[in-house]
């Protein structure tokens, strides 16, 4: 290797550096590929199902015995039904999983977007302005943390969903999904807001902030153009770690009967149904459950990989 080539330093953007670090993390790459596949399947659900000749709604009695239990082993797996059929109805599980992923990912991704948006803006605002704004936002967070959020979500659902309908949201599942998204945002923004506040508190003491202030920048300019661009790394990390949590919560809601309702497919709904078939058809518990676990795991691993790639600080700890 010649002397100049080893000395030539190639300029790399922080994003490129992060991507190079991310690529080294094999687990994260596998997880990224897996989650991308699931997202793609969910996005193109009608075409995928047509291609596989499966349908989430059509009932198939031929696969069930007289008491409604799949008549072949492993929950009725066959060439026609790759992951078996639902006991009782004979609907195809793979198709229902693909359509269920649609609901689950829609709720999780939209809710993550609004949670992050609200948390980032309020957090930076509080940390940058301090004083009374900080006080109000801080006390609101204290208040929200004091409430048993799951209980409130459950008990307000029967009231708030009709209200959303009267506000113009389509009745049924869209209103139910909107409610979940709204309430997750309402209770979810506090965590990222506290992280952002801490970051903004230290950034506001830096020279470039003082310079912008001296040239007469308004608060909105300071928040969005001066402070926010420095915080993309933690924002991406926290947003990516919010998604798996929300996927799990959405499944929990539909497990409790608060999410989308049949015939629309939902992962939590299938698991709630599976309780009745514990003894006769355990595959109905394991297949949707494993799917849910793998999807949450994949998103968690991607988030972890991003955290390691974007925040190399962790490497510096000394050995004891």
């Amino acid at each position, binding site marked *: 290797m010649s002397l100049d080539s080893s000395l030539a330093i190639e300029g790399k953007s922080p994003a490129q550096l992060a991507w190079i670090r991310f690529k080294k993390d094999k687990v994260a790459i596998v997880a990224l590929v897996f989650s991308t596949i699931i997202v793609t399947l969910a996005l193109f659900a009608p075409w995928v199902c047509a291609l596989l000749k499966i349908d989430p709604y059509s009932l198939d009695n031929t696969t069930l015995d007289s008491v409604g239990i799949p008549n072949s082993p492993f929950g009725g797996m066959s060439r026609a039904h790759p992951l078996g059929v639902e006991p009782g109805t004979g609907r195809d599980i793979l198709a229902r999983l693909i359509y269920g992923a649609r609901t689950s990912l829609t709720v999780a991704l939209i809710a993550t977007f609004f949670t992050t948006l609200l948390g980032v803006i309020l957090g930076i605002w509080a940390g940058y302005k301090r004083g009374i704004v900080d006080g109000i936002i801080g006390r609101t967070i204290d208040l929200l943390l004091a409430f048993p959020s*799951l209980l409130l979500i459950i008990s307000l659902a029967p009231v708030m969903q009709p209200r959303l309908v009267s506000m113009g949201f389509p009745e049924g599942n869209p209103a139910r999904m909107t409610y979940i998204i709204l309430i997750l945002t309402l209770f979810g923004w506090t965590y990222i807001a506290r992280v952002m506040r801490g970051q903004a508190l230290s950034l506001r003491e830096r020279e470039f902030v003082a310079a912008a202030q001296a040239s007469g920048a308004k608060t909105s300019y300071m928040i969005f153009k001066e402070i926010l661009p420095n915080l993309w790394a933690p924002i991406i990390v926290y947003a990516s770690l919010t998604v798996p949590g929300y996927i799990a919560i959405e499944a929990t809601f539909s497990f409790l009967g608060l999410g989308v309702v049949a015939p629309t497919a939902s992962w939590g709904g299938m698991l709630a149904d599976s309780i009745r078939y514990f003894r006769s058809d355990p595959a109905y518990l394991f297949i949707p459950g494993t799917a849910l676990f793998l999807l949450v795991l994949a998103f968690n691993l991607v988030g972890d990989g991003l955290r390691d790639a974007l925040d190399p600080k962790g490497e510096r700890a000394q050995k004891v």
Partner: protein
Amino acid sequence: MARFVVRRLAFMIFLLAIVSIATFLLFSVLPVDPASLSCGQHCTPEKIAANRIRLGYDQPLINQYFTFMKGIFAGRSYGEGAQAFSCPAPSFGYSYYRGQCVTEMITNALPATISLTIGSAIIWLTMGIGLGVISAMNKGKIQDRVSTGLAIFGLSMPTFFIGLLLIYVFIIWLQIFPFPSYTHFLDNPFKWAQALVLPWFTVAIVSAALYTRLTRDGMLETMSEDYVRLAIAKGLPRRKVLVRYVLRGAITPIVTIAGLDIAVLLGGAIITESVFGLPGMGRLALNSVTDSDLPVIVGITLITAFFVVVANALVDILYASLDPRVRLES
């Protein structure tokens, strides 16, 4: 220190007042009429109206609020003459649906929830902190990989799925346990534990995962502090450095979060309790939602908020007494 404690307690009381007002306002939007729920089969509009007056729901919201708050401290009586009855202090109202004082229903549900909370907290703190310490001490080695792997595994299992899996594996498949029927600890400690083992682990697995991460990250961060470097430099034994310096420095934020998690759990583990059919606060809450039993929902919300706010204040005070920087900052 005394000034900090007084200020923190004053803020706690302020927050409790705000929480109670917010709860009252929030639930006043529910289109539930406790007066008609209590009426039974042979109901007439007159009866409902009479009930409403007896329960105080005819009053303006602000009066209802003050009567309710007074009831918490002084107890509350309903109705007049022969039909009068009362709920002694602390009274959180009366459930006509069940014909019971809310406080009594909550007191009946608390033992199961407290048993669940204490047992699972012991398991998750031991497992979580233990794995975290092992992981941090062996950073990058196989022990670290296994611990962090287990943690992410636990974090990715939704609570209700863990519960269902444990029921399937241990009750239906291996038949190690009978289907849980909760027994009071004093009646039969063995049956009590038998009914609670699976719920304990259900709650503990998710939380332990979180604590493993917190402990590991906290310890690794403390290891890069100057005072740890000094301790190593002056030749203290490795074990002593880890326990006295690193773990001690890393444990404070964990105690803070543990205090809050335990307080939240005392308000009832809705998912775990309903999956296992434990007669605790969480199941009471879920049943009350199904029955539209408004007074009970309000009562449980307030009690849970009370646990969280008080735990928060206690943890802050504890923290301040351990770390003088906290006092000076605020």
